[in-house]
């Protein structure tokens, strides 16, 4: 069954590679989220923290916050 409904061409190679990339990057993604939620439970206000966790908290931040 065809799953892709798109008016733009998503590209055969682009679909296949993104599935592979997603599989790889989901490992650190969930690891980071797990650490973050654990830290959040342990300390209400983490002082500083790793740059990775700060960036993850910025997921919904406005573009200007990225600089």
């Amino acid at each position, binding site marked *: 069954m*065809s*799953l*892709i409904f798109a*008016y733009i061409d998503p590209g055969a*190679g682009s679909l296949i590679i993104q599935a592979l990339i997603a599989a790889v990057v*989901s490992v650190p*993604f969930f690891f980071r989220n797990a650490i973050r939620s654990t830290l959040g439970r342990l300390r209400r206000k983490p002082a500083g923290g790793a740059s990775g966790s700060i960036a993850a908290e910025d*997921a919904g931040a406005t573009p200007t916050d*990225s600089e």
Partner: protein
Amino acid sequence: MTERPPAQREPGSYRDPSGFVFRRDGVLYRQVNQVFADDWAAFESSGLHAALVGAGVLVADHPASIELAPEPGALAVIRPDEVGFISHPFEWSFSQLKDAALLTLKAQTMASERGMTLRDASAYNIQFHAGRPILIDTLSFERVRAGEPWKPYRQFCEHFLAPLALMAHRDGRMGQLLRTWFDGIPLDLAAKLLPRRTRFSPGLTAHVHLHARAQRRHAGDTDAPGRTAPKSVTMSDPRRQALLDHLRRTVEGQHLPAHGTQWADYADQTSYSAAGTASKEAIVQRMLEAVAAEGGKRAWDVGANTGRYSAIAAEAGFDVIALDGDWAAVERDYLKLRAAGETRIMPLLADIADPPPGIGWANTERASLLQRANADVAVSLALVHHLAIGRNVPLPMIAELHARLAPHVIIEWVPKEDPMVRHLLSAREDVFPGYTMEGFRAAFATQFEIVEEAPIEDSSRVIFRMRSLP
């Protein structure tokens, strides 16, 4: 029933079967088609529409009469708020493109939270409004289907990530590739042009280098039996979330190297004394206020450089397009304005000696810069010598171009004895016998009447205010 004005479909709005943008009587509308009914309903019922508009991510729209629909199959007609000036991604500096990319991903994040997703990630769907990027395509969202990959992935990489990476890692001028490949930079080309060291960046390795290789490898894929059918690729929601998070980190990780360019430090090199600068600013301010008093609202600062005079125009009440041909000047101006929260000035990367042409289908899909000229006043300070001597453009042609830009012109005459002109002539033969104030007056007199002229103190330069001939 009253006679309706004829509808004109916007030339760039033809790709998406779910609807299109048109004008009636100069007013911008969008027809939503019946084929899009379910997704349009979900866009409303999920609360995404209201959330995006409320967060300033998407332009607001207002219901309009379905009677206005120019084509059959209409479900609804909406009237979106218009942005003041339509710019193209190759007219943006690095940080403008980066902010547009991050806004696209923010829209996707908000959609994901409500069971929806972006259907496309075209850089042309983003415009700058009141100093901030904003999504202008109200039909960019649909319900996400379980197990679906992120369909705009390829478009996002080609429209945003590839040019950003090329600017960050190769050269800031590489953004101009978007003028040729206006529908996104081919990833195989981006991969070839990027320095080898970018292969040590996990983000660029994944989303550009490996992505390009996968495109090449699967270029000939068909639905034939025995081949992996790309259409059957599936991805869990959490994995799609991880992919998008990784893309966002990769975009955020792109930074320009810190170094100056030809113009970026130009303001410090001008020939003005402190008294001359104060005099010039006072003259320009007074002349802008005079144009404002005649009803002027929009100004184009041509050759804006550091944006000093764009700021004066904004203070005088104008919405300003600050054009400069040097990407670093535009970048610096944008960062400065963004930090200050300035909403009335839009820095734009465009060389007035080579204004962006109409591109895409029939050369009309994306309008040329001159077609988009909507200024009431063109402010051309310290520009005429760069065009006349730096680019060998005859003075009458400079006057004709200004007549196409705006009905009012504030323009600075820079004589041959000026140190900056002497510098331009220092290594070349002076083949410009007509470059005199008399020649300048005569050239502009064919297009404009000179309303006033003011010599700058402590300088041989003169600023003219002109009005186009009726």
